C-alpha cells in the first residue's frame, strides 16, 4: 500500500450501489470469502467493479485451522480460485475452528493453547499457505471460555505459530479487548507478545455487553455497534508500538448508512496519520 494511513470497511451489499456510483473515502474493502464462493452473478460482478477501484482484503471464516479435522481440500481449492481471480492485498483466517470435518457450525470456536493445538494449527497453516500459494494472516479470536489444558498464553501461541510457519497476523484489537475482559487479563499482554513485524492488518469493531454466571462483565463480539472508546484507546497504543497498519472497521449486524462507517474509518485514519508521523520522528 502506498499510504501509511490505509483504512477500509467490510463490504456490504446494501452499500455497493452507492460506492460504485459516488465512491467512498476509503482505501480498501474486506469481504468474507465464503460469501463469494458462488458460480456467478451480481456478487462477483460487483466485487470485480470494487476491485478495479479499491484494494481488497479477503477474510475467510470457514477454513477451521484450529480444528482437529483435516482441512477441507475442496474448500481450499475454491478459496484458491477466488484468490486467483481477485488477487487481494491480504488473505486472513482465524485462530479458531468452525467445523469437525462433517458439520459446519458457523461460529469461531476456541482452541486449547497447548502443544498439541500448536502443532495442529501450524500444520494447517503450512498446508493452507502451500495450497493457496500465499501468506496467510491469522487473526486472534474473541473467546468466552478457556481450557484447563492450555499451557501457553494466546500471545505466546500466536508468536510461535508465526515463528514456525512464517504466516502473518491480523490483530483484531476489539477481540484482544473482549477476550482480555472476559478472562480478566490485560489486553496489552497480547499485543506486546506478538512479533510486531508479522502484523499485516488490524481489525476494529464494536462489542455487546452481557453478564457471566457471577454477574461480571462478559463482552460479546457482535460487530453490531461502533468501536468502543476503550478499544480506540488500545488501538492508539497499539499503533504507537507497531507503527501504522492497514485498518478495517468491521460491522456485520445493524448495518448503518455507508457514511457512518466511512466516518468511523476516517477516525482510524487520523490515528494512523498520528502514528506514522510519530514513527518518522522516532526514526
Amino acid at each position: 500500500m502506498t499510504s501509511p494511513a490505509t483504512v477500509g470497511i467490510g463490504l456490504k451489499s446494501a452499500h455497493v450501489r452507492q460506492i460504485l456510483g459516488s465512491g467512498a473515502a476509503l482505501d480498501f474493502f474486506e469481504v468474507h470469502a465464503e460469501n463469494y464462493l458462488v458460480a456467478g452473478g451480481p456478487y462477483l460482478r460487483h466485487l470485480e467493479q470494487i476491485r478495479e477501484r479499491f484494494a481488497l482484503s479477503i477474510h475467510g471464516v470457514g477454513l477451521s485451522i484450529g480444528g482437529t479435522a483435516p482441512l477441507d481440500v475442496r474448500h481450499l481449492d475454491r478459496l484458491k480460485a477466488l484468490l486467483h481471480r481477485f488477487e487481494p492485498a491480504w488473505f486472513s483466517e482465524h485462530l479458531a475452528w468452525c467445523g469437525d470435518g462433517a458439520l459446519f457450525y458457523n461460529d469461531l470456536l476456541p482452541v486449547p493453547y497447548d502443544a498439541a493445538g500448536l502443532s495442529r494449527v501450524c500444520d494447517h497453516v503450512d498446508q493452507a499457505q502451500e495450497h493457496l500459494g500465499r501468506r496467510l494472516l491469522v487473526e486472534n479470536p474473541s473467546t468466552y471460555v478457556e481450557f484447563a489444558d492450555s499451557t501457553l498464553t494466546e500471545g505466546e501461541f500466536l508468536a510461535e505459530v508465526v515463528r514456525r510457519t512464517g504466516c502473518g497476523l491480523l490483530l483484531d484489537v476489539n477481540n484482544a479487548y473482549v477476550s482480555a475482559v472476559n478472562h480478566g487479563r490485560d489486553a496489552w499482554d497480547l499485543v506486546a507478545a506478538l512479533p510486531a513485524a508479522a502484523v499485516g492488518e488490524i481489525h476494529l469493531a464494536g462489542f455487546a455487553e452481557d453478564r457471566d454466571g457471577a454477574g461480571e462483565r462478559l463482552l460479546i463480539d457482535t460487530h453490531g455497534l461502533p468501536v468502543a472508546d476503550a478499544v480506540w484507546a488500545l488501538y492508539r497504543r497499539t499503533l504507537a508500538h507497531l507503527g501504522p497498519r492497514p485498518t478495517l472497521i468491521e460491522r456485520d449486524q445493524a448495518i448503518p448508512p455507508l457514511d457512518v462507517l466511512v466516518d468511523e474509518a476516517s477516525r482510524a485514519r487520523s490515528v494512523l496519520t498520528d502514528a506514522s508521523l510519530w514513527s518518522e520522528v522516532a526514526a
Partner: protein
Amino acid sequence: MSGGAAVLGEFAAALLDPEHPLPAGLVTRNGTDPATRFAVYRNNVVVSLVAALADTFPFTRELVGRQFFDAMARCFIVAQPPRSPVLTEYGDDFPDFVALFGPARALAYLPDVARLEVARVRAYHAAEAEVLGTAALAALLADQDRLPGVWLTLQPSFAVVASDHAIVSLWAAHHGEGRLDGVDPARPESALVLRDGDDVLVLPVSVGTGAFVAKLKAGSPLGEATSAAAAREPEFDLTHALALLIRHGGIAACPLPGDLDS
C-alpha cells in the same frame, strides 16, 4: 489424536444439544459455572444459522410469521446442520424439511414457496453463459427434420418450480401485486425463475412450458422436451415457449464447465 481432540469433540456435541453436558476442561477466570459463557457459543451458532435461513426464505418467513419460522429453522438446524461453510447452499434441503414439519402441515403450499425461494437464490448466484446469437439460433432451428434432436443449452440461472399451489400469485402478492387473501392457494401454477441483470424474476408459465423448460434444463433434446410438454398440456405452443426463452436471453451458446457445479 491428542487430548485437545477429545475436548473439541465434546465441545461440538454440546453446541447443538442443550441437554448435552458441557465439555470437561473448560475454565473461567472467576471460577463460575462456564454454562453462561458456553451459551454464547450455542447462541451464536443457532442465531447466525437462523439468520442465514431467514435471508434465503424471506417470504416463507413472512407467511408463517417470524416466531414460527425461527422455531422451525431451529428444528432444521439441529436436524440437518450445515456441512459446508458456503451458506448460500445451506437452504437447499429446507423445503423438504418444511414439507415434513408437522406444525406447518396445514399450509400445503409452504414447501413449494420455499422451493421457489431456493430457486431464486440459486438463480442469483448461478454462472453466466454467453447468449446464443439470433443467427446461430436461426441456423440451429432451421431444419425442421432435425429439430427433435437439437440440444439447447439453457442459461444456468433458468429454472422451473412447478407446483400444485398458486406459488406465483402468492409471490406476486408478497411484492404488492394483488392481495394475499385474494389468492386461491389451491390453483396449480408453475414459475420460471431467471436472473436478469442484478434481479431475479419469477414469471408465471403454463404447466406445459414449465415441463418443457425443466426438460431442457435436465439435458433432454428438443423433441423429448416438446413431447413432455404436450403430454402435460395438449395446446402447448413450442414457438411461444422458445420466444419466451429467447426474449430473456435464456438460450446459451454452449455448456459451461461451471454449470455442473452450480
